């Protein structure tokens, strides 16, 4: 009986961990993608109507994205292969610096790459039979 309880506990922990990692990954990725979309809009906006306040706001949002990544990076390192998230981390690290320097083009490219990587991570946790086989 004791072993049956151990088996049930272990399966429950495994399933819960799987579901938790799936849901949490989706939530974090969606959160960051929506922030990236906002920053991209600002990026485009500054190209059309440049002013100091917009640039300051632009920089703050990139810094905010960076901070959100810092908060959630431990989660990602716990569940994902380092190679999958290394590039994402590098791009996010560089973003505030490029924004501060007013390097809009590089910032835009970084944002696009970040978004692609986040979409990739989000899709990699989806449960579908293509992933299984």
């Amino acid at each position, binding site marked *: 009986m004791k072993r*049956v309880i*151990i088996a049930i506990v*272990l*399966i429950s922990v495994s399933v819960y*961990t799987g579901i938790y990692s799936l849901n949490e990954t989706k939530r974090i990725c969606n959160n960051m993608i929506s922030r990236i979309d906002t920053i991209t809009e600002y990026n485009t906006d500054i190209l059309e109507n440049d002013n100091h306040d917009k640039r300051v706001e632009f920089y703050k949002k990139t810094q905010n994205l960076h901070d959100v990544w810092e908060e959630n990076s431990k989660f990602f390192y716990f*569940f994902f*292969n*380092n190679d999958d998230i290394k590039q994402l981390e590098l791009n996010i690290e560089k973003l505030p610096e490029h924004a501060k320097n007013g390097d809009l083009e590089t910032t835009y490219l970084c944002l696009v790459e970040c978004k692609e990587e986040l979409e990739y991570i989000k899709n990699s946790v989806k449960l579908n039979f293509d992933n299984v086989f």
Partner: protein
Amino acid sequence: MLTTIIRVVILYLFVSAAIRIMGKRNIGELQPTELVITLLLSEFASIPIEDNSIPLINSLIPVMILISLEIINSVISMKSTKFRNISDGNALLIIKDGKLDQKQLKKLRFTVDDVLSALRQKDVFDINEVAYAIIETNGTLSVLLKPKFQNATKQDVKVKTKNDGYTCPVIIDGVVLKKNLDVLEINKEDIEKILEKKQVNKKQVFLMNIDKNKNTEIILKE
């Protein structure tokens, strides 16, 4: 390197606990499914040791699932004979009255050399001495010799015997094993009296064996 060391320690403890929970010690006694699980456990455990970029959770979760599957398998096997036959197979008779069952050998894909080798490991050098030989589900061979080739027992030679009961270790490395005292129905005070008579301190004892009649054997620490 420090990461690798910590991972090895965690995985070692985890896999040891896993094998302990599965309830087998000797690899030779494993059923087919248990052998598979043990091999897979070692595979999963080694993955994050080889590559530090792979999260530890990628090893821990599969190990947990494997233990659970094995426990579920063993519980169902206990309740259902049909499932047990499918999962573990059946023991097969391969020698009857000194004659090899060649059909069974073909079924098992055993050669005659395999059978003779297994018999020799059971100290049987002549197949004609064998009454029955059975291949168990874990691959070992059980042998029953013909009566005239079996060793004589005390009953056969009509020798009187006395029952000394079961000899049990009661002190190992200076520590009294209470469980074994209960088995022999002996108290701690009896042990202490025996040690006092032999002028030995409990802490000096490396091994102390005793039987029901209080015949003791003491080995002191060097």
